[in-house]
């Protein structure tokens, strides 16, 4: 192992866990707990479920310690497990949720509950709470893979290559996912953009 990967704190901790060092596992959970809880919370939108899934992520890591090979950044591996856990939970939840036909929009998706944008006015007067709800609503409505790509890129500063590894697709696919996600976000935030630009 050479280069920056050798200084990857997660990799070093994980290799110690592999050698049976329980204090390294405790440290590993301590370092990454907030990232994992935050990411799962954004994906599943359920605080209690998110905490349970986050615990499950770390347990999976512990159980996989003997098979672990430091082939990529530790965070990439961790987020891949996190994404898969969240995805499974969402799919299980979706299977058990019966959507009312009336609740579907013309495109078959649940209608956006975007708060009405204020009438044109100074951008600084736009209530932050209103914008906050609009942004949350837009992110919620993104398909799960776009939401994960946005999460990893926007809030974790990950490069396309690492995102591709984390969600199990090609770099080209990530480029396409983020392009579509950002176009969608731009369109849905258009009322706020006008206010901001004016």
């Amino acid at each position: 192992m050479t280069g920056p990967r050798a200084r990857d704190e997660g990799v070093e901790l994980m290799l110690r866990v592999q050698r049976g060092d329980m204090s390294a596992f405790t440290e590993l959970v301590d370092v990454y707990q907030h990232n994992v809880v935050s990411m799962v919370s954004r994906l599943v939108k359920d605080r209690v479920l998110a905490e349970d899934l986050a615990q499950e992520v770390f347990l999976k890591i512990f159980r996989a310690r003997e098979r672990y090979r430091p082939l990529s950044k530790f965070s990439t591996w961790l987020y891949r497990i996190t994404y898969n856990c969240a995805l499974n939970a969402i799919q299980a939840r979706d299977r058990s949720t019966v959507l009312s036909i009336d609740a579907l929009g013309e495109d078959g998706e649940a209608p956006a509950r975007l708060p009405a944008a204020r009438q044109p006015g100074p951008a600084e007067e736009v209530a932050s709470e209103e914008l906050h709800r609009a942004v949350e609503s837009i992110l919620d409505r993104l398909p799960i893979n776009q939401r994960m790509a946005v999460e990893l890129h926007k809030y974790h500063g990950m490069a396309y290559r690492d995102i591709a590894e984390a969600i199990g697709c090609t770099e080209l696919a990530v480029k396409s996912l983020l392009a579509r996600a950002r176009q969608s976000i731009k369109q849905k935030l258009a009322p706020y953009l006008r206010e901001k630009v004016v």
Partner: protein
Amino acid sequence: MTRENEDIREHLVAFLDGEIQDEALRAKIERALESDPSLAREAQQLETSWKLLDAASPRERAPKDFVSQVVGRVHRPKPASRWRLRWRWIGPVAAAIVVALAMWAMWPDEGERLKTRDELALEDRNAPEVDDLEVIRSLHLLEDLEWLQENGPRIDLGQRLEMLALLQAQDE
């Protein structure tokens, strides 16, 4: 926007993210942004909307006892999986099926089935009467025993044992 710049649009987000490695393509996009106001406006809107995502909810944090909970769970035995819980009935049912099949295989056919007491009594009435041990003793044992077997006399177990003892005594 020119047709060429329409093609550039698909690379715009990657360009804004600093993910275009091809220098020639990067230079081409930069030139297009300088020369095409609509493309430049689009780039600006993409940037601004991206920044507005900062208004999303503050990042959730793990509860204070999260680490101890996880480490505690590591030392607990893994609970039975949902799959195991769902199929836990399969073992007893499989065992019951095996037992039932074994019993069926061992069950006598119609021709071999155990005879009832009445059927045995009927056979006894039709068979020669050889109840008296004195009669048996008076016979030439080996030949007569064969005769008895062929002609199906009905004698009970005690009588058979006595006959065998008699045969052994004669052999000695």
